[in-house]
């Protein structure tokens, strides 16, 4: 039980890297699609809705498999410069995670934008602030604050999602745990250690979000 700890801890680093990179890219994707959802152009709007519907309606495993196993099948795609990125399982996993969390994040941000009190925007307008600055300096910060609790849940879900990287040969925390289980055949002990590490990360994320919520609360 103790002997497996160093291996599992070094695998935790991989999990954390996967998580932070996918959250970073996912946040941009989410923000982009949330803005598209609020757009009055019906095509952009439908496109963004379709994106989030497809990515939220299918399992993450299918998405990773399509990107990792599926895209390599297209001859033309292999000759483009993108292939440098897509031939690595590491980047395929990150792209799949980012697209997935982007879909959920866009829904979270969209509802946050829609629940901003119109008075705040009107106040900005009556002070003669331009629409662009209202958007960047008022709407986005308020929306981020309002979506913090929901986004915290999404971070935890994404952390659990990174475990799927083990299905495309990456040795993350779950991948290493599975390897140790299948070689030592001690499922319960390894589950306790690996599960404990995951729980600890959940605990940290949960408290971090709580702290941020308090720090940026309106009162």
């Amino acid at each position, binding site marked *: 039980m103790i002997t497996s700890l160093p291996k599992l801890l070094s695998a935790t680093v991989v999990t954390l890297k996967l998580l932070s990179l996918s959250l970073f890219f996912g946040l941009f994707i989410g923000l982009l699609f949330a803005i598209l959802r609020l757009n009055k152009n019906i095509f952009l709007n439908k496109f963004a809705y379709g994106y989030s519907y497809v990515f939220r309606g299918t399992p993450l*495993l299918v998405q990773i498999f399509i990107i990792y196993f599926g895209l390599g099948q297209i001859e033309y795609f292999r000759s483009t410069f993108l292939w440098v990125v897509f031939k690595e399982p590491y980047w395929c996993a990150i792209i799949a995670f980012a697209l997935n969390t982007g879909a959920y994040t866009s829904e979270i941000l969209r509802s946050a934008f829609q629940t901003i009190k119109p008075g705040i925007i009107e106040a900005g307008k009556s002070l003669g602030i331009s629409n662009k600055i209202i958007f960047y300096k008022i709407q986005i910060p308020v929306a981020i604050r309002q979506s913090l609790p929901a986004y915290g849940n999404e971070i935890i879900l994404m952390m659990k999602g990174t475990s799927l990287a083990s299905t495309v040969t990456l040795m993350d925390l779950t991948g290493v745990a599975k390897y140790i289980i299948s070689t030592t055949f001690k*499922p319960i002990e390894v589950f306790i250690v690996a599960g404990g590490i995951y729980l600890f990360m959940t605990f940290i994320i949960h408290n971090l979000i709580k702290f941020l919520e308090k720090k940026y609360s309106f009162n």
Partner: protein
Amino acid sequence: MELLAFGKTGWGDELFIATLMTIAVSITAMLIGFLFALIFTPLKLSKNKILNFIGNSYTTVIRGVPELLVIYLFFFGGSGAVMFVASIFGYNDYIEINAFITGSFAIGIISGAYSTEVFRGAIQSIDKGQFEASQVLGLKRFAYFFRVIMPQMLRLAIPNLSNVWQITLKDTSLISVTGLVEIMRQSYIAAGSTRDPLFFYSFAAVLYLTLTFLSMKLINRLEIKYSRGF
């Protein structure tokens, strides 16, 4: 389209059966989840500190640990645990549990943690007066729970249970790692033998989308039915 033909030449019939398997596993897992919720919701609402702790640790641990890890625990540890219990009763032969039972149990435990949270929230948001009224009327505990609390709880729980159903349905794709032939596993086999992963995985995605879409429609109807008069 040839790839999807029914019969020996295509994968249509195999994928159809695999889809039925996904539905079967999801429903079994959801029902097992309800059983777990039925046990753990009262624990979470209990005033006894120890019972409360047991209820809380169940939902916290399961919701904080990746689904895949839970599945591996059951896949590698399941038959060992059953054999251990059987050996207490004096049965020492090797027992193998089939992938369907392992899988639906693993997903069921996960789904149960989410259902527990939903039921807890629903019970807590029922008006206090309802509890008091049934006490005043002298209803027996059983009648009070099944006749007064349960119907009201279900109405409040249905929208959130539909989320749990979606999570459960999508989680069943993870059972493919144990070798149970559901949509994901069948697509993996088909992709391997035809060397056409893009087509089969995209088709799997379409199947999942159809399932989520249809089940949403069905649940919306239930929601309308149960919220009559409100």
